[in-house]
């Protein structure tokens, strides 16, 4: 198994530093709408960091299968979008059960920061971890909050 991002909502303080740092690191500017993860706050009781599972759980809703251009594939354990093939049609964004793909001229998704996730580095509470995971690690997330 390879290491992926795992979210522990029971630890999340809702600070959203992860979103800011993700966009700053990848886009060179801060914009939480361009983060490759997001923190959902359905009510006062919950702050739920939603992260890319690198296809561990997505099954038939995975962005890989949804892409008509075959622009998305797994490269070294990371689900990767080939910007050259991507036409920004938006199918992958719709398919992603966690809503963590965003689109402008091309689709953007979590690339694990090349193996040293910035969001994990800055998460102050252990709500985001970079570790080996299986399907179960994500099961509770999807039932806790689902953006259909």
């Amino acid at each position, binding site marked *: 198994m390879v290491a992926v991002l795992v979210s522990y909502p*029971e*630890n*999340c*303080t*809702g*600070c*959203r*530093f992860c979103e*800011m*740092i993700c966009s*700053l*690191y990848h*886009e*060179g*500017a*801060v*914009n*939480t*709408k*361009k983060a490759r993860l997001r923190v959902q*706050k359905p*009510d*006062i*009781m919950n*702050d739920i960091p939603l992260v890319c599972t690198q296809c561990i759980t997505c099954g038939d809703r995975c962005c890989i299968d949804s892409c008509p251009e075959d622009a998305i594939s797994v490269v070294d354990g990371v689900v990767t979008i080939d910007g050259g093939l991507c036409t920004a049609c938006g199918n992958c964004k719709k398919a992603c059960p966690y809503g963590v793909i965003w689109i402008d001229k091309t689709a953007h998704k979590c690339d694990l920061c090349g193996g040293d996730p*910035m969001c994990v*580095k*800055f998460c*102050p*509470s252990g709500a985001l971890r970079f570790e080996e995971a299986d399907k179960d690690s994500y099961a509770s997330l999807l039932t806790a909050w689902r953006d259909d």
Partner: protein
Amino acid sequence: MHAVGGKILYVDLTTGEMRTEETTPDLVKEYLGGDGLAVKLFTDNMDPSVQPLDASNVLVFAPGLFTGLPVPTGGKCLFLSRSPLTGTIAESVMGGNIGAEFKMAGYDALVITGRSEFPCVLRVWDDVIDIKGGSPYWGMVTRDAQEAIRRDLRVSSVACIGPAGEKLVRYATIDCEDRQCGRAGLGTVMGSKNLKAIAVRGTKDLTIADPEELIRLDLELQNTMENSGAFMDDTKYGTGEFLNWVNEERGVFPTRNWQESVFEDRKEIDPYYWAPRYTLRSKGCFGCTKACGKLFVVQEGKYSGTKLDGIEYETLYSLGGECSNPDIEALARANEVCDLLGIDTISAGVCIGFTMELVERGILSTDDLGMECRFGNPDAVVEMSEMIGRREGFGKLLGEGVMRAASEIGNDVERYAMHVKGMEPPAYDVRGIKGMGLGFMTSPRGACHLRSGVYALNLVGKFWRWDNVDRFAAEGKGEQVKAMEDFMTVYDSLGVCKFSRGFFLIEGYIPFIRAILDEEMSEEEILQVGERVNNLKQLFNYSVGVRREDFYLPRRLTEEPIKDGVAKGAIITEKEMHRMLDDYLDARGWDNDGKPGESKLRELRLA
């Protein structure tokens, strides 16, 4: 320009007119953002003859310069206006996400004037701004209103008032994500404008001059924070962490409407007791990696179902010790009631404590009040908070604030009314912290610990430029309060949390300003922004008639010494009060009446 949204948005709710102006580099250099920018815009646009609840009163919203950027603890925003409680210029800071969202919509400040004919919601969706009908949300408590508006108007963030703001309780709050602009009645100003909420969705980039350098500085600061003891205590126990210490070691925890200064029954309200039992996890303001908030949940008993982001130190005093309330569950419920209805917990608690003292003295009877509003009755604290928030029964009078309530009741009860300039004081018995007493007197918005924050350095004995500070001495406090006021104003202008001052002094932000703005600012220049802003505030206050006699302390503090605990006997005499004030006015370069002098204004480029 880096770090900023780029525009200032003006909205007139009477005419529906809107316009924007550019945020100029000069404006940023002279005022930074947040408090500084808000004060500048307010004083530029406000006519001093306009009363706080007049339609023409100006309400400014401004995120800090660092708000929306990844700077640890830097996510604050504030509202500022002429306060219905004090009649002076007053701001109140909070940590909800609306500041960041607003900047990502492309703005650095919002200047609201006028009054809508109908209840409304101001929606800002990047460049599209509209005034939406607010009737469906009128009457809703803060949490419900935010959820409904977020859903209906498809925005990411909402700041709103509760029923108390609509009904013009004088200390109504503005709430965003269970974080409040609590003090001085800025929610009341929103209510008077028929403005239920401001709803924002922003999708634009905030740029930074040197992203790599910022990330490096962030990691460094994060490290410093995590390795400090204060960080651990704050994240574990929240702002009430030092409650026991303030009682036992310093003897300055105001209790029973300031008749006592140690709360004997504090066992349950101490976070070391309640945090392990009631807290599910920590919560943070937007952008804060320190997370001193607590998700507090009551799971059984009479107040089962209570849940809130709290309880803060100030509220542990106001709805706890001040009312001699030893019951943490009732305290939590009262706190939640205040948050939901939208009233300031400090003012509410002091008003209730005041009432309890009048009952104790036989000046009011429980029959008059329709409830057993007595010291030590936790249920009464909950019930009275509800009545204030809904403006019912005796709560209607208490919602006017303790100063107005006292003059209405008559009978010389003013001597028991704790306030400065009409604002109820926070949790520091200043008789045992003389510098803080001066801070209460000089704060533009009335009794306030946060304008200067000199309580901390006096209680600990050292901070920044000072060593071996004697908290019982009146000497040297003028200079201290002046310098700390300027210091704290910088925090509110940058949008960083004052609780980070323990890790990070002004000079610590110089490299951040460099990395973010590509600007070189010296410590002196940065502090001068604070001084400039405080002079502008006093210029406004002077223009509405604030004079020397308005810099005073409540009578109790100059007439009755502290009765109990380690600070027993401490008092601030009239003479000391005047001496400290003289020193302060000197340090400020203001005349005997509080008027900022010409040469000072020229030095600050204000004249």
